[in-house]
C-alpha cells in the first residue's frame, strides 16, 4: 500500500501523544507548578492534534474533514476521529483542573485512560478491519499499535521527568525497558505471523476461471500504471524490507533501551532515546504500509 507521509506522521505522533497522555492521567508525571501543567499540557495535546491535522493532508478535500465525524456507527476511521476529539477535550479539562488545583476524581482518570487506549485501538482498526490486506487483517495488528503507544508514551514520560528535573526511580526506568522490549517483541511476532498471511483468494477465485486450469494475467487493461496499482502495489519497500526492519528495531527499540540502561537519569540521553524511538517508529510505520499488498493485485500480477 502506498505509504502517505501524512498518515505515517499521524499514526506515529498521535500514538505517542496518546501513550504519553495515558501515563499522565495515571499520575506518573507529577505536575508541581502551573508552568509544568501548561508546558506538558500543550506538548501532549499538540502531539495528538498535530497527528490528527496531518492526517487531513492526504485528503482530496481537507475542508470537508469534519464530515468524517459522522459515521461512527460503521466506520473505524470515523470512530477514531470522534474518540480523538473527545479525548482531547477530556485532556484539556484534565490539564485545566491541574492548573486550577482541582482534584480530578479517580473514576475520571480511569475513564480518560480507557478512552485514550480505545482511540489507539480505533486507529489500528482502520487498517486491521480491511479484509483486503491480509497482513493487516490480523489480531496482532491492534496489539502492536497499543503496545507502541504505551512503550513510546512511557519513554516520553521519562524524558519529561528528566526535563522537569524530577527524580526517575529505577523501577520506572526498568518498566520503560520492559515495555519497550515487549512492544518490539509483539512487532517481531507480527512480522513473522501477519507478515506471512496471504489472502484467502487466488487469481482463480478472483476470476472464477479455475475450472479451466491455472490462470495467468495476459494483458493489463491499460497501457500505463493506474490509480489501483499506484495505491495498492507499492514495491520499493519489499526490496529492502530486511534492512529497513533492522533500522526500525535499532533506532526504535535497541538504542532507547541501551540509553535507558546506561544513563537513566540523563536528560540528554533520554531526549536522544525518545528521538531515536520516534525515528524508528517512522520506519516501522512506513514499512507497515509499504510492505502491505492488496488483494486486487491478483488481477494485475496473479499473486498478492
Amino acid at each position: 500500500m502506498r505509504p502517505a507521509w501524512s498518515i505515517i506522521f499521524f499514526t506515529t505522533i498521535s500514538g505517542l501523544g496518546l501513550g504519553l497522555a495515558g501515563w499522565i492521567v495515571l499520575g506518573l508525571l507529577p505536575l508541581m507548578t502551573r508552568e509544568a501543567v501548561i508546558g506538558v499540557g500543550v506538548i501532549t495535546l499538540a502531539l495528538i492534534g498535530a497527528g490528527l491535522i496531518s492526517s487531513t493532508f492526504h485528503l482530496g478535500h481537507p475542508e470537508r474533514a469534519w464530515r468524517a465525524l459522522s459515521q461512527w456507527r460503521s466506520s473505524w476511521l470515523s470512530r477514531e476521529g470522534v474518540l480523538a476529539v473527545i479525548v482531547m477535550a477530556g485532556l484539556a479539562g484534565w490539564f485545566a483542573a491541574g492548573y486550577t488545583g482541582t482534584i480530578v476524581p479517580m473514576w475520571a482518570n480511569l475513564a480518560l485512560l480507557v478512552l485514550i487506549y480505545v482511540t489507539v485501538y480505533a486507529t489500528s482498526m482502520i487498517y486491521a478491519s480491511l479484509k483486503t490486506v491480509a497482513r493487516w487483517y490480523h489480531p496482532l495488528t491492534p496489539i502492536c499499535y497499543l503496545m507502541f503507544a504505551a512503550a513510546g508514551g512511557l519513554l516520553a514520560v521519562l524524558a519529561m521527568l528528566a526535563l522537569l528535573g524530577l527524580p526517575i526511580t529505577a523501577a520506572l526506568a526498568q518498566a520503560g525497558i520492559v515495555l519497550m522490549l515487549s512492544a518490539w517483541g509483539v512487532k517481531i511476532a507480527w512480522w513473522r505471523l501477519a507478515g506471512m498471511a496471504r489472502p484467502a483468494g487466488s487469481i482463480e477465485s478472483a476470476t472464477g476461471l479455475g475450472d479451466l486450469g491455472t490462470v495467468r494475467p495476459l494483458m493489463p487493461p491499460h497501457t500505463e500504471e493506474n490509480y489501483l496499482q499506484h495505491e495498492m502495489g507499492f514495491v520499493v519497500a519489499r526490496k529492502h524490507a530486511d534492512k529497513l526492519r533492522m533500522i526500525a528495531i535499532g533506532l526504535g527499540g535497541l538504542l532507547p533501551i541501551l540509553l535507558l540502561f546506561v544513563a537513566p537519569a540523563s536528560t540528554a540521553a533520554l531526549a536522544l532515546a525518545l528521538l531515536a524511538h520516534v525515528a524508528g517508529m517512522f520506519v516501522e510505520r512506513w514499512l507497515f504500509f509499504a510492505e502491505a499488498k492488496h488483494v486486487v493485485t491478483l488481477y494485475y500480477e496473479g499473486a498478492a
Partner: protein
Amino acid sequence: MTMLPEASAIKLGLVIDLDICVGCQACVVNCKEWNTAGYGAPLADDDAYGAAPTGAWLNRVHAFEAGDGADSRTVHFPKSCLHCEEAPCVTVCPTGASFKRAEDGIVLVNEDWCIGCGLCAWSCPYGARELDPAEGVMKKCTLCVDRIYNDNIPEEDRQPACVRTCPTNARHFGDLGDPDSDVSRMVADRGGIDLMPEQGTKPVNKYLPPRPRRAADETPVSLVAMAEADTPTGFWKWVDSTLERLG
C-alpha cells in the same frame, strides 16, 4: 449514511458473459464517455495527451490466459463495481458519502460529501473505485443511474452505457433480486459465479464462465464431400456421361 440498508428486493446489476466478450474495449470507452458528461464531476485524466496518460476509469477489461497447453484459452475479463450486498466500501466510509441505495441496491458516492480519503478503495477487493485526479473525490460505477431511470432518452437507451454499447451482447443488465428476470435465468442456466466469494462481499454482479470446449474426438464433417454435387442418376446420368464423351 454508511450503514448498509436492509437487503433490497430489487438488486440491479450486471451479468457478464466471459464466453462472449472479445475484449474490444467498447464498453470501457462508452463508460468513460458517458460518465465524463453524466453523474457528478467529469471523469478526469492526468496528462491525457502526454507520454504517460493516466486517469479514472470505472470499467476496465483485463485479459487472462486459463488452462494449459493446447487446452489453454484467452479470456477477456471486464471488471467494474459489483454493487455488493455486503459492500465494505460503504461501511468504512467516515463521511456517509459512500452509500448503497435501499430501493435498488446501487452503490453510489455523494461527491459533495466525499473527502477523498481513499479508504473505500482500499476496502474494495475488486479495484472498482478510483480517485478522480482532478476532483479529489472517489469515482465508481453508478450502474448509469442517470440513464436507467432517465425519461428524457429513448427507452432502448435506458440501460448502462457499457451494456448498450457492447457489440457482442456480452453484458446484460437487470434485476438479480427477481429469480424470473432474464439475467437471473441466465445465471441459473449457465452457472453464474461470484468473484472472490471468500471476501464475503456477496456481489450482485455475476460472471458467466466460458462454455466448455466441444470434445476433440468428434470426427469433423468433411467439407470436401459437402462441396461435391450429388452423383446424377437415370436420364441425367446418361446426359452427363454423353456430354463427358463429347470432350
